[in-house]
């Protein structure tokens, strides 16, 4: 018999200037763990698989917006150890299609107040973001996006090369191979601290009495009469009324356990960082033609996102030729990069759909919902995606933000085609 569900909320300890002062007086001996590393119970109302940003945000908004706190988030590794802790943290909402603009802009708005909301500093930094146009095709594409964004109420604008140069003085805009022809500028775009987003949501979930269970890999889904009954995990069987699969690169693997197939392919995407240097660039720059994505971290490192491997891959490694390709192309536009030592390189497994848009959907199995397909660009979407997913799970039907992202769109030919707009952009 599974134990009865008895969620016990932890008493929240607020972080504040007074808490810092108090702790300073007692040599910081009183700080506690931000969130409880829970043991799993035998039954929950909702089980979320995957303690990445999207899984944690789903749990958080289930509690906050729908009062559902009998929730476990199961993670096979450690909290935020998937793509959440591996991405280059670019946040923007300048997408072409209306459904994308709606969910990404909701997300950006939530990011703007997330630190206050979670009482946890996620270091959201709206430093501005430029998507460089380095081909005629991109010039037209981004001008079109700027107009689409205008109609969507998302503030972006087309800027000429001189303004790009003014905003990013370290840039060489003259080419010769890829001259900068202008850019799509979103002043509200920027970055946030990726781990802090996971930790902040985890802390808030934990305070609501939810269990975040690490080292707990889901290995099977028990289905009876077309409905989910339980998941089998490396830490035992856990029953649930509803199951949310939020596992990014492993979506196909978990979907297979539940007996359905997704229009997803998993591939490696990689990034690298340089040694820390003095502040030299206070905007985020995306060069989609050459698949180089650049920002400077608060520590001073130049953070560089690269292109994807083209083939199915679960290695979380990345490959040298892509590092070379990315850096080779970027140093034409950022000559000073050629003098920097690179410190680390890593990869994550991203979940790519055919139209490069995510899936937030009910599935053929009753009580099972899936949130995946964010591919190379889902960090920015964490709050908005969690918000929309919570509604889907709580009500069993999608709200306005998720409505267009159902998986039936492929059969029905209702693609939300972002690939034409920006390739594999983050």
């Amino acid at each position, binding site marked *: 018999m599974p134990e009865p569900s008895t969620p016990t909320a932890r008493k929240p300890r607020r972080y504040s200037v007074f808490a810092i002062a108090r702790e300073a007086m007692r040599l910081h001996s009183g700080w506690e763990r931000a969130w409880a590393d829970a043991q799993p119970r035998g039954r929950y109302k909702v089980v979320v698989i995957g303690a990445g940003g999207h899984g944690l945000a789903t749990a958080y908004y289930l509690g906050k917006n729908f009062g559902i706190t009998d929730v476990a988030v199961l993670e096979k590794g450690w909290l935020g150890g998937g793509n959440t802790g591996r991405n280059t943290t670019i946040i923007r909402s300048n997408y072409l299609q209306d459904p994308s603009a709606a969910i990404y802009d909701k997300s950006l708005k939530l990011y703007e107040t997330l630190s206050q909301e979670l009482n946890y500093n996620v270091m959201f930094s709206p430093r501005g973001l430029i998507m460089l146009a380095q081909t005629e095709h991109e010039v037209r594409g981004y001008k079109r996006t700027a107009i689409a964004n205008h109609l969507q109420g998302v503030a972006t604008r087309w800027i000429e090369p001189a303004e790009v140069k003014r905003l990013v003085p370290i840039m060489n805009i003259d080419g010769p191979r890829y001259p900068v022809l202008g850019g799509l500028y979103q002043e509200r775009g920027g970055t946030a601290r990726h781990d802090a987003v996971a930790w902040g949501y985890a802390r808030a979930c934990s305070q609501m009495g939810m269990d975040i269970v690490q080292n707990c890999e889901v290995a099977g889904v028990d289905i009876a009469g077309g409905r989910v009954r339980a998941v089998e995990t490396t830490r035992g069987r856990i029953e649930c009324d509803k199951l949310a699969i939020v596992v990014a690169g*492993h979506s*196909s*693997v978990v979907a297979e356990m539940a007996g359905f*197939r*997704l*229009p*997803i*392919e*998993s591939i490696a995407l990689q990034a690298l960082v340089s040694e820390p240097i003095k502040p030299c660039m206070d905007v985020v720059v995306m060069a989609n033609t050459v698949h180089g994505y650049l920002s400077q971290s608060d520590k001073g490192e130049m953070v560089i996102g690269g292109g994807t491997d*083209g*083939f*199915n*891959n*679960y*290695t979380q490694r990345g*490959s*040298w*030729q892509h590092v070379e390709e990315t850096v080779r192309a970027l140093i034409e536009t950022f000559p000073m990069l050629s003098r920097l030592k690179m410190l680390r390189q890593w990869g994550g497994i991203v979940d790519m759909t*055919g139209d490069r848009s995510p899936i937030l959907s009910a599935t053929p199995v009753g009580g099972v919902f899936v949130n995946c397909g964010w591919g190379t660009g889902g960090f920015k979407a964490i709050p908005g995606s969690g918000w929309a997913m919570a509604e889907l799970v709580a009500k069993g039907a999608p709200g306005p933000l998720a409505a267009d992202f159902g998986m039936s769109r*492929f*059969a029905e030919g209702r693609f939300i085609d972002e690939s034409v707009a920006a390739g594999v952009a983050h």
Partner: protein
Amino acid sequence: MLILTCPYCGVAAEETELHPGGEAHLTRHGPGSTDADFEWYLFARRNPKGVHFERWRHLYGCGKWFLAARDTVTLQVFGTYPAQSKYPPREIIAAIRADRPDWVPHWDEITGDSAPGVGNDPAPNPTPARDSFA
């Protein structure tokens, strides 16, 4: 870097010389097929964590499409074979079975009929490759 030997020209080609083409052995469904079949053919993918059969093109070499059997976790290559093969050849099946005793093939999905090659049955012989220069 991934190195695949092109079954046509015999070159051990590096990844930079090749172009990936996704899952192999998909049944092509066309007009007259059901919506579900068509959706599966166009979009749904097995995307396995483990043994994967896939299409590659020797782009900066002889230019031909061929197929490869590879592990998506270890990047181990079990072998490459001509694009016109209905099934992977016996040697490749044997190489996979030797290293992955738990591996279950999915020929039923490839052929749509009852499952030849499933379990301990030997995999069927590949259809002979058509003349690759035709």
